[in-house]
Structure formats: C-alpha cells, structure tokens
C-alpha cells in the first residue's frame, strides 16, 4: 500500500512516517499543508492520503477542503483525516457529504498500529472509517423517541462497529461470533431503524449516520 502524509507538525510527521514504514507501508511523500499536498499528489497518486484537519494558513478546517479537492480530482483515492479533538459535527459532515472513501480518526489513535493499518486497508478498498469515540458520542446523543432505544445491547454494539466502517466479517471476528449471527443482528437493526439492507459498507455507515441525525 502506498500512502502520502500531510501534517504541519514535523515531529508528528516523522514519527508517523517511521511507524508506517516499519509496518511495511510505502510512504510516497510528506507535506506541511494542503497546497503542498495537492502539488505532491499531482505528480504521484498514492492509495490513501493521511491529512491533518488543522493546518496552515487558517488552522481551522483545511483538512476538509483538501479532502474535498482530492476527491474531486482523484475520486478513487482514500482520505484519512486526523484530528486532535473530537468534533462530531465535522466528522458527520465529512462522512455524509462525501460519497467517496473517507475516514476520520483521532490523532492519538494512530499509536495503535493495528487500528491504523486496519483503517488504511478499509480506505484502500473504498470503505469508510469513523473513530469509535465519535460513534459513541453520536449514539449517546439524547433524542426524544430515538429509534435507538428499541435496540438490544448487542444490536447497539454491532451498530457502533458498523458506524466505524467495519464489515460484517470484521465485526464477527471482533465479537467472536459467526458471520451469520452478525448478519441476522444487522437485519434486525435495519428493520428496527426502518432501513433497507444493502451490501455496501459505506452506504450502511452513511445510512446509520444520517439516521442518527448528525448535527
């Protein structure tokens, strides 16, 4: 897998690059901001781009605009946006407004190499990634008469993993149950939430997030 990294902190960048190389990921380039990243990408396109949300010049949401620009120019490229803070509105907007392969992870999550590599693989395959913390917060949002209230604990657990962007197979491995069991739970969740089942992971995440309401 080939990856390009953009972050204005040189320290974090070099740490991340080292970690990725140790894990056998080919790092094709490093950029300090969105503009530099787009220049790099126009020469050589990796499978996935890792981009910090807060970069010069405004230090607010350059990551979002850069992700949109990347998807406009290279629709198949996966984009993983890293953030220091949990910004649920931003994450929801990123996932629901982007029809492409996109992910949102907290920065300190990348210490967990397996999580990071798993996320990159899902993005490479065109899937989506959403930080578990964001999913937990979305599901924790109180709404009157939320359809989530009807779900069993197990179903809520599976919904959260789906919302993170995981496949049925991944969920079954994580929960140590058979894939068929997961499928039947998913069917039950979808019918309780009034959703149409679809084989597309990304679409499922979107549907769930949209249903949870976002902002």
């Amino acid at each position: 897998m080939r990856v390009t990294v953009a972050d204005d902190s040189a320290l974090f960048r070099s740490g991340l690059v080292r970690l990725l190389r140790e894990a056998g990921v080919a790092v094709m380039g490093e950029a300090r901001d969105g503009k530099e990243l787009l220049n790099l990408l126009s020469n050589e396109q990796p499978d996935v781009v890792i981009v910090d949300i807060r970069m010069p010049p405004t230090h607010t949401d350059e990551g979002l605009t850069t992700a949109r620009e990347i998807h406009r120019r290279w629709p198949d490229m996966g984009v993983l946006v890293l953030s220091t803070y949990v910004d649920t509105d931003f994450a929801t907007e990123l996932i629901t407004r982007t029809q492409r392969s996109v992910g949102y992870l907290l920065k300190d999550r990348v210490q967990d190499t397996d999580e990071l590599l798993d996320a990159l693989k899902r993005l490479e395959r065109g899937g989506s990634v959403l930080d578990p913390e964001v999913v937990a917060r979305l599901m924790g949002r109180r709404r009157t008469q939320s359809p989530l209230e009807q779900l069993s604990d197990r179903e809520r657990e599976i919904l959260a993993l789906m919302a993170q962007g995981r496949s049925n197979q991944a969920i079954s491995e994580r929960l140590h149950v058979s894939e068929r069991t997961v499928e039947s739970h998913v069917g039950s969740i979808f019918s309780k939430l009034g959703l149409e089942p679809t084989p597309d992971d990304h679409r499922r995440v979107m549907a769930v997030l949209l249903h949870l309401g976002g902002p």
Partner: protein
Amino acid sequence: MNFAGLSVKQQHVHVAVVVAGIVAGLFGILAAAINPYNATWVNLVVYTPIEVAVGWSFLFVGLIAGRRRPENRVGLLMSIFGLIWFAYVLSWIQSPVLYYLGDAFRWAFLVVLGHLYIVYPRGRPAGKLERGALAAIYVWFAFAVLSETPTNDPISQGCRQCLPNPFFIPGTAWLNPATTAISQAGITLLAFAVLGVFFWHWRQASAPVRRAMTPAAWAALPVLGVVIALQLEARGLLSAQVLAVLMPIEWLTYAVLPVGLLVGVLRTRLGRAAVTDFVIELNRIPTRTSLRDSLARALGDPSLELAFALPGGEYVDMLGATMILPSPGSGRAVTSIESAGRPLAALIHDPAIDEEDPELVAAAGSAARLALENERLQAEVRASLEEVRASRARILEAADAERKRLERDIHDGAQQRLVALGLALRMARDQAATHADEALVKDLDGATSQLKQALSELRDLAQGIHPAVLSRAGIGAALRVLAELSPIPVEVKDVPTARYPESVEAAVYFVVSEALTNTAKHSGAGRVEVSVRQQDDRLLVDVRDDGLGGAAAGNGSGLIGMADRVSVLGGKLEIASPSAAGTLVHAEIPCG
C-alpha cells in the same frame, strides 16, 4: 466690515427717512385741506386721516423695529414704505414735473411692500430665489415707470384740466394702452410671486422664525385680495361701486400691516418672557431630558441639543457618548456656555434664533448654568462609565485572544510532541516484542497508557481554554460537543446556524459550559435542556435542568464570571432556581 459703524450709519439714514415721512404726511394733510378737488368732508374726515395713519404707522413701527434690531433691515424697509406711501402727495402740487413724478411713483409703495415680504423677517435675501424675486419686482417697476409715463398724454385724450406731461415723447401715445395693460398684469403676477416666496419661506422656516412670520402672513392675505379686486375692476369684471367700498378696506388693511409686522418683531420679546418662565421652571426640573425640553420650549426650537464639556476638551451627550460639535456653515449654530472661564456646555440650535435675538440663547444658557453644571457632572460620570465599559471589553477581548493563542500553542506544541512520543513508544514496544523482552513490553505498555491519559487531560484542558470547534463551526457545533461531554444527558434544542462576533460566540459558549458544569456538580438533575434563540438583535440563552434548584451566582460559582462576561457585552444573566423546581440560567446577549 465694522458692523457697529454700519448700523450707526443705517440709523442716521433711518432717522432721515422718518423725518422726511413726517414732513410728507403733514404736507399731505395740508394739501388735502386746501385742494379744491379734494376738500370734501368725507375725504377730510375719513380718507386723509387713514392715509396719513398708514404712512406714519409704517414710519414709526419701522423706527421701533430698527432701534430694537439695528442689524436687521426690516425696520428701515418699513419706514421707507411709510415715506414712499406719501409719493401720491406730489401729484397734488400744481407743477407738471412733480405731478407726473408722483403719478409715476404711485405704485412704488407696492414694490417696497414686496421687498419687505421677500426678505421678512431676516431683512436680507437669503438665497437665489429671493434675489431673483427682488430683481423681478424692481425690473417691473422700472418698466412701468419708463414705459407708462413717457407715453401718457392726457391732453390728447381729451382731459382739458389736466397738466401737460413734460416727460411725454411725442408720437408714442398709441403705445400707452399696451404698456399700461402689461404693467397691470405684472402687478398681479408679482403679487402672487412675492406671496409664493413668502409662504415657501414660512414652510421652510424653523419654529421660532415661523412664529415671527405668522402675523405678517395673515396680514398679507387681505392685501392680496385687494390687489386682485383692483385687477378685476380694471378689466370691467367688478363694478366701480363695489371697488369704492373695497378701497377704504384696502387702506385699513395697510394700516393693519405694520401691526402684524410689529407683532412678529415683538415675538422675540415674548421669547425673552419664555426664558424668564424657564428660569422659574428650572427650580422644578427633576430629570435631564426635561432640562433639554424646557430649554427647547423657552427658545422655541424643538431641535435643540445639549453637549457637555469634559475636562479634556471633548464634548459628550447626556448619556456620556462622545459628540462632535457642528462646524460653522453646517446649518446648526453653537452657543457655548462658560462657567468660571471654563467651557461648561454647548447649546446646538437653529441659527434663526441668533438672527432673531443674538443674546437669547446665551441668556437662557446662563440662566440654566447651575442645572447645566449638574448635568455636565452627570454626563462626565456617564462618560467615565462608558470608558470603563469599553476598557472591560478590551480586556476581555485581549484575554480571549490570549486564550486562543494559548490553545494554539498547546495544540501545535505539547499535543503534537506527546502524540509523536506515543508513536515512538509504540515502536519501542514492537522492538521489545520482537526481542521477546516481556518485562520491557509491560513497562512500555504502562508508559503508553499513562501517556494516553496525559493526552486526554491535555486535550480537555486545551478545549476548556478555547474550544477549536467554536472558531471552526460556531455556536451550534460547539454546544453539541459540550452536550456530548456532559455526564448528565443534555438535549440541545434550538441553536442558531448563523455566525456571530467572536466575543458573542465565546460568551454563549462559556455561559452554557459553566451552567452545565454547575448542573453536573450540584443539581442532581436527570436531564438538561439547552436552547439559544435569536430575538431581534439579542441572543437568548436558556439552560434548564430538572434538578434540586437553589442555585445562585454566589461565591465560588463560575456564573459570576459569566455574568461579568455577559455584562461587558451589554447583556444580562439571570438565574431562576426555586427550591426543588430545577434551575434556569437565562442570558440575553446583544449580537447586532
């Protein structure tokens, strides 16, 4: 130009005019008495006294006005009217030259009257319109004199007892009917034009000027009526008998005119009387607005404004806001009131009051000196308070900027460094694992989990100093993050999607944040509702819980700091927390 010198010279001219008018009037009485054609008892008892009374009343009333207002030409013009009025007397002298001069000038008094009305009550033409109207009436008069008299030959018309016209130019008699008709039509047109200018003035005038003009306006209407009646008679539309009744009325009207003009002049005396009333009223003035209103009433100028002098030389209004005094030529006049040689206040008013009576405003201002000093001190205090408020706002702004900078420093510095450290630890752990160093792996795992804890605490700290999401996405997104982090379920009901000034967004955020913290700590509430709504130019913030109540912005409560923050922005914060009925924190923050 020496104004006093001019007015002395003008006063000499004025006296000369009056003396000449007295002589002309006496001569008119004498001529009426000895003139065989005129010496009927009706003429002697009715017409002649009225005629003389009209002339002399203009002369003397003009003199009074001139004495009282030396710089205003209205008085002089009135006296000139009184003199010219007697021009007809010349035609009673059995001299051809004087007779025809008197005949030529028989309408001259109307020209002076027109002049008077055009420049009334200022005494000078105020603009192009007035200068144009003046030019028109004098051109008309020159035309009438130069075209009628030289073409008038009464002897050839069959008037045997008439004197021969020494100004007659032979061969022009055929022109006379036409020129007479033209100048007659001119009178009507100009009468309307003069009244038009006068009433246009009246409409444009400020209250004090209008007050002075009103009697003259009423007096003008019968004069106009008579002018029209004369024109109708000349065209045979009105019988001579009706006109014979109207003529004494016309004369009586002229006798009334100077009274109307005089009343206008005396109105300034009434202005002084109003100032006297005002001095008495001052004893009862309770509030600052009524001081202004009383002054405005006394000076007859509803547009009057007060400005108070600060020690630094600046001026402020009654609420303490800085004021710039109008410059000369701006259409507003400024009268400065001093106390012990130091500027105390300035009265900003209609310049017409000065033209009417230059001392009136200063007199009223001086009368109110004590009340003004009192107001000035209050305005000074308000100005200081305003300065304090502005300074608090600047301090808060600086503090917010500093918070933002601090968060940025933490984000770009310590947080990145710690995350990078986490990555390094992770790699060290993997190394240790490949060398099967179980103890080292365990140590490194412990270090990693402590680092995660440190990062999480640092993140909360930075978020508390300044929430990045607030700058990025505004109130809504930031409040939802607050709600997610609250240990008590929070429902964010209404939030505006619009963006507001940074200080306003920060105030809303910190008020809600503090209220949620208090709720979580003390209330035992099961749920909290947050709503932020915009109503007109205010944001209404409500945080309502279903807890124990009994909260107050007392000692140790962060809500005091929030109340300060809100009040700096000109808003207010209220806490309703009846015992056992939940707590409502309500803030209103101007956002316009």
